[in-house]
């Protein structure tokens, strides 16, 4: 006779249903999670859902549709598709993120990391501190300094020998990209130099003994080993740069005209200067989608490494 035969119906009902070997959920758990939960719920989840709604309305900041706004379906998105400024803004955003963020910051950061690896520790330390100082400086201060540099009579025009040139008007996107590269390089430098330190020196030395030149070693040995680090770095740069507002807005307000109006700046202009909250939100949604697509591309690049690590 087994316990199953001995146990009657009523006894089964009162048997404890919870497993005794699993940890109990303590009541304080929810209490302590709740402040964070409330904050995240109220200021992340609900606004995100609300944003998905607002993007499909004609809500305005002021004016007839501020209070009485209505659901307009895909009208905002139709407007977006036909809006030449939206498309040029998207193009600019990609140039800004890829050019100034991914290409410039990664190359500069990597160069600094590689040079630093072989340099004397005083030079490495000093230059490292300078580059990091550029990163720690509040964004508005960076914007101001590079605004001044790009002026007619500013340092950049002095350096290229044409002091009368208002570079901020002639090549604004370039100046803004330079400013962002100056500011953000420290991040890549730190991550990539940490990644470099994790490359086992034995592999590099083995390649040296086989007679491989420096560049061959760099491209055939070091960089492939560092691929996950480099990809992660690019992902983080993209996420950080794509929603960057302060630098460009403070330097050019998106101008001259709309020449530097990357998507976050364009969103702000539409929402708070043209009072069109609905359209602004639609632009923000488009920005999220673009960011998500880029992130997925990176994560897809990283997956082979993750699978290998298992």
């Amino acid at each position, binding site marked *: 006779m087994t316990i199953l035969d001995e146990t009657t119906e009523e006894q089964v009902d009162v048997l404890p249903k919870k497993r005794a070997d699993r940890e109990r959920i303590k009541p304080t758990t929810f209490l302590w999670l709740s402040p964070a939960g409330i904050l995240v719920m109220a200021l*992340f989840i609900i606004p995100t859902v609300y944003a998905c709604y*607002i993007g499909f309305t004609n809500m305005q900041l002021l004016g007839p549709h501020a209070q009485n706004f209505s659901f307009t379906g895909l009208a905002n998105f139709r407007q977006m598709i036909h809006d030449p400024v939206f498309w040029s803004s998207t193009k600019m955003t990609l140039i800004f993120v890829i050019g100034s963020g991914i290409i410039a910051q990664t190359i500069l950061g990597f160069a600094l990391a590689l040079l630093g*690896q072989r340099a004397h520790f005083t*030079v490495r330390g000093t230059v490292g501190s300078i580059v990091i100082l*550029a990163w720690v400086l509040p964004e508005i201060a960076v914007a*101001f*300094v590079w605004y001044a540099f790009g002026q007619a009579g500013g340092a950049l025009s002095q350096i290229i020998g044409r002091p009368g040139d208002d570079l901020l008007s002639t090549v604004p996107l370039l100046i803004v990209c330079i400013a962002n590269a100056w500011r953000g390089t420290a991040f890549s430098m730190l991550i990539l130099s940490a990644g470099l330190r994790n490359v086992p020196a034995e592999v590099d030395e083995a390649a040296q003994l086989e007679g491989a030149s420096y560049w061959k070693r760099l491209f055939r040995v070091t960089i492939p080993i560092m691929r996950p680090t480099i990809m992660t770095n690019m992902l983080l740069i993209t996420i950080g740069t794509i929603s960057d507002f*302060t630098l460009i807005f*403070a330097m050019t307000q998106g101008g001259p005209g709309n020449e530097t109006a990357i998507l976050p700046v364009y969103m702000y202009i539409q929402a708070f200067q043209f009072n069109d909250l609905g359209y602004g939100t639609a632009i923000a949604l488009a920005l999220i989608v673009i960011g998500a697509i880029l992130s997925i591309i990176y994560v897809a690049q990283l997956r082979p490494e993750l699978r290998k690590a298992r």
Partner: protein
Amino acid sequence: MAIEELEIPVLDEEAPKSDGYATRRIRPGLFQGVSVNVVLALLGVVFLLPLIWLLDASLNPHASAALTTPAWSLKNFRAALAAGAGGAIKNSLYLAIVSTIVATVVSTLAAFVLSRRRVPFKASLLLLILFLTGLPVTLLLIPIFEIFVHLGWVDSPFYTSLVLAATSVPFTIWLLKNFIDQVPRELEEAAAIEGASELRILWRIVIPLAMPGILVASILTFINSWGSFLIPLVLDANPSSQPGAVGIYQFMSANGVVHFGPLAAYSILFSAPVVVLYLICSRWLNGGFAFAGGVKG
């Protein structure tokens, strides 16, 4: 067999250890060594130029956008203070402090729970938190603005700092959770056996042990909130509660003529606290920012 006769393997202390810096065993030639340092130093100078200009412009009463020779005067700093730098910096201090306290307290509680206790759907929650760290504020700004307008919470430094706290919370929770994961549980378990309550364990044991992580997280939140521009710009239109970033921006775009000298001074005044905080932080975390620090293996 006596102890002395046992053969105990000993680490070969004299063999050069690999420290990741490949300069030990196969040395580069002298020319390469020198040129690397020269190139690095040149890059350093290029990066330094804007900072030099900033310093120079702040001290030069006739500052302009150009790089000039220095002339010392504190006139620009006085002008910056006259333009409201003091008040704006005080506002920044309020926003940064309140948001840091809120974010740190909230995140520590949540991180402790996520690290130590069983939580339903924990894996999904952690994934959500990781995902939220990358969510740009640009999407949230308009709906939060609308909600705040309805609630009458606009133009309030307090609610603005709550939003700033919220933007830091996901990253802080993730950071702290990973940190607390590494704190050994034996002490907590011993305390629990002795009959300590949950709260006591948290307060007396976990928090002191996790203090380095908590301090790093709060400094990062502080630096983040200090430099915040877009959120206060949108949520707080009251000129008397504008933080430094907005103040500098208003000063830049006011009156048509840009006063480079006072603005440079304003920028330096505004940047100083954050730079100092970073210096303190990096002195401590020598390992974390080891590029700039020593080569302590």
